[in-house]
C-alpha cells in the first residue's frame, strides 16, 4: 500500500525527466527555460491549492508572498558591501569571518561583495513565514468576501511598498541578482549553459513540494482540513482546532510562494513590481479554480500548461484574452476541473465495460 502510493510521484518524475529527454532529442532544449520558470510558478499555485481547495480559504494576496521572498533575497544579494568592508564595518567583518559573504564581479568589472544567497534565502523564508503567521491570525478569522478583501488588501500593501520603496528599486525592480550556488557545481542562474541543471533543480523542488502536499492531504491534517472546508462549525464541534489548521496551511503555502519567488529571482537575475501585482494573485487563484479547486493533479497540470504557453508568448497580445476565455469556459462547463469532466467519466465507464 505504502509503495503503491508513491507510484504516481515516480511516474511524474519520469514524465518530467522524459520531457527533458524529449527536448534533447528534438534539439529544442531552449524550451527548458520556460519550463523551469513554469515549475516555479506551479510551486506557488499548488501551495495556494492547499489553502483554497482543501482548507477552503481564498487568498487574493499570494503574489505578495512571492514578492516578499523574491525581493528580500534580491535586495540582500545585490547590496554591495565592499565599501563597508573597506571601512572596517564590524558587522560586515563578522559576516565575512563566518564565511557568509561572497565575492563577485559585475558586467563592468566592478568587484562585488554580497551576502551569500543561502543566508538571504533563509532570512527571506523566515520573514515570509513570520509575516504570513502574523497576518494570518486576524485575516483567517474573516469569512467570504471579507476574507477575499483582506487578503487582497495585504497584496496591495506589498505591491505599494515595493513600488514606492527606494531599496526595492521602485518601478524598475531589482536587476543583476547573482546566481544561487546550492552546492559546488550546482547553481541557480539563467546562464544558457546551465539550463538543464536548472530545469532539474526546479523540478526537484516542485516534486518534493508536491509529494509533501499530497502526504499532508492524506494525513490527519488533510482530513481535518476537509472537515473545515465542509463546515467549519461542525469541524469545530468535533474538536478540530480549525483556527490552528487554517493558519498552518496558510503559512505553509506562503512559504512555498516565497521559495518560488527566491529561486525564480535568482534564475531570472531580477524581479519587478509586476510580480507583486493584484492581477498576478488573481491569476494564481484562477488557475487553482481551473484546475478543479481541490485537485492537486489538476491544478499542477493547468498551472504548467497555461504558464508555459503564456511565457512562450504563444498568444501574443491576446494572452489575457485567451486566459479569460479558458477561465470562463472551464468554469461554465467543467467547474470541477477538466480532470473530472463527464467525458472522462464516460471514458472510464466505457473502459470498465459498464
Amino acid at each position, binding site marked *: 500500500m505504502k509503495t503503491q502510493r508513491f507510484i504516481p510521484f515516480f511516474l511524474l518524475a519520469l514524465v518530467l525527466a522524459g520531457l527533458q529527454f524529449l527536448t534533447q532529442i528534438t534539439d529544442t532544449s531552449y524550451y527548458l527555460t520556460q519550463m523551469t520558470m513554469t515549475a516555479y510558478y506551479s510551486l506557488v499555485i499548488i501551495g495556494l491549492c492547499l489553502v483554497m481547495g482543501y482548507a477552503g480559504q481564498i487568498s487574493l494576496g499570494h503574489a505578495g508572498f512571492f514578492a516578499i521572498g523574491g525581493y528580500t533575497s534580491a535586495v540582500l544579494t545585490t547590496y554591495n558591501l565592499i565599501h563597508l568592508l573597506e571601512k572596517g564595518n564590524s558587522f560586515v567583518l563578522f559576516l565575512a569571518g563566518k564565511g557568509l559573504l561572497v565575492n563577485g564581479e559585475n558586467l563592468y568589472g566592478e568587484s562585488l561583495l554580497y551576502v551569500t544567497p543561502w543566508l538571504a534565502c533563509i532570512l527571506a523564508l523566515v520573514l515570509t513565514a513570520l509575516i504570513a503567521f502574523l497576518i494570518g491570525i486576524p485575516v483567517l*478569522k474573516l469569512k*467570504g468576501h471579507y476574507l477575499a478583501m*483582506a487578503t487582497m488588501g495585504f497584496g496591495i500593501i506589498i505591491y505599494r511598498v515595493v513600488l514606492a520603496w527606494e531599496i526595492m528599486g521602485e518601478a524598475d525592480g531589482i536587476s543583476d541578482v547573482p546566481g544561487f550556488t546550492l552546492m559546488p557545481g550546482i547553481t541557480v542562474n539563467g546562464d544558457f549553459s546551465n539550463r538543464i541543471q536548472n530545469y532539474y533543480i526546479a523540478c526537484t523542488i516542485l516534486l518534493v513540494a508536491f509529494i509533501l502536499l499530497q502526504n499532508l492531504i492524506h494525513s490527519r491534517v488533510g482530513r481535518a482540513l476537509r472537515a473545515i472546508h465542509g463546515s467549519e462549525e461542525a469541524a469545530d464541534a468535533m474538536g478540530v482546532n480549525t483556527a490552528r489548521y487554517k493558519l498552518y496551511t496558510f503559512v505553509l503555502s506562503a512559504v512555498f510562494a516565497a521559495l518560488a519567488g527566491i529561486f525564480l529571482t535568482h534564475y531570472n537575475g531580477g524581479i519587478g513590481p509586476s510580480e507583486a501585482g493584484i492581477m498576478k494573485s488573481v491569476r494564481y487563484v484562477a488557475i487553482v479554480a481551473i484546475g478543479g479547486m481541490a485537485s492537486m493533479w489538476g491544478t499542477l497540470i493547468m498551472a504548467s500548461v497555461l504558464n508555459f504557453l503564456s511565457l512562450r508568448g504563444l498568444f501574443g497580445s491576446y494572452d489575457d484574452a485567451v486566459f479569460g476565455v479558458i*477561465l470562463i469556459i472551464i468554469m*461554465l462547463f467543467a467547474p470541477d476541473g477538466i480532470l473530472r469532466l463527464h467525458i472522462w467519466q464516460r471514458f472510464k465507464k466505457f473502459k470498465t465495460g459498464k
Partner: protein
Amino acid sequence: MTSELFLQYLFAGITYGSIYAIVAIGFNIIYNTTGIINFAQGEFVMLGGMLSISLHTFLPLPLAIAIAVIITMIIGALIEIIFIRWLESPSVLRMIIITIGISILIREAALHVWGEGVRSLPYFNGNEISSIRILSTNVSPQVLWVIGVCAVIVVLLSLFFKFTSLGQEMRACSSNRLAATLCGINTKNMVTLSFMLSAAIGALAGCVVSPITYTQYDSGTGLAIKGFTVAVLGGLGNSMAAVSAGLLLGIIEAFSIDIVPLAFQDAISISILLIILFVRPHGLFGSKEAAGLKEF
C-alpha cells in the same frame, strides 16, 4: 495645519470618496440579489465612459450619456443571460471566477476596439481649469456633479427598494431565494434586472467621473478594486454604508498625504482599512447576523 489646507484635504478626500462610493454602489446591487460580488463591475464603469466618449463625437452630451448607459445596461443583461442565468445552483466562488473572466474579456475587447489611448468626456460645466470657490478653497464643478449624482442614485435606490413592488421582489430574492420563488417571484428575472441596474449605475458613474479621472481600456480595474474595498468595508449590501465608507477611505487617503509620501498612500489607507476590518469583521455598518446567513 492651516484651516485652508485642512479644507483642501477634506474636499480632495470627498472627491476621492465620492468616486469610490459611486462605483461601490453597483457592487451592492448585484450582491443584494445574488449574494455574489461581480468583479466585472469596474468594466461597466469603463464601458460607460468609453461609449459616451465615442457617442459624444456626434451626439450632444446628455444624449450620449443616456445612450451609453442604455447600451451598457443591455450588455449587463446579455452577460447575465449568456453566462449566469442557465447555471444550476452555482457555487459563489465559481460565480466570482466567472465574473473575473468576464472582466478580462471586456477589457481585452475594449483594448482592441478603442486602442490603448486615454480619452475623456468634456467637463459638464466649465473646463479643465475652472473651479468654484467654497469656503476659501477651490473645487472643480465636476466634483459637485459626482457628489450630486452619487446622492441622487442612493436616494432613488433606497426609494426603489423600499416602496416599489419590483424593488421589494428583488429584496426578497436576496434574503431567501427559495422562499421568493415560492411566493411566485421569478428570481431569474430579478437577477437579470439587478445586472442591468448595476450596469446602468456603473456606466453613469463612468460618464460622470471620466472628465476627472480619464478613461482608458483598463481604467475599470483600479476603480473596481477601490469600489470593492469600499463596499466590503461598509458592509456588503448596504448602499448607504458604501457611501459612508467611500468618504471615509477618501478622507483617510487625502489626509495621509500630509504625513507620509504620496507613494505610500494606498499602503497606509489599506492598512487602516484592514485594522478596521479586524475589529469589525462584518464591515463598518454590516450586521453580524446578516453576514452569517450569506454563504461565501
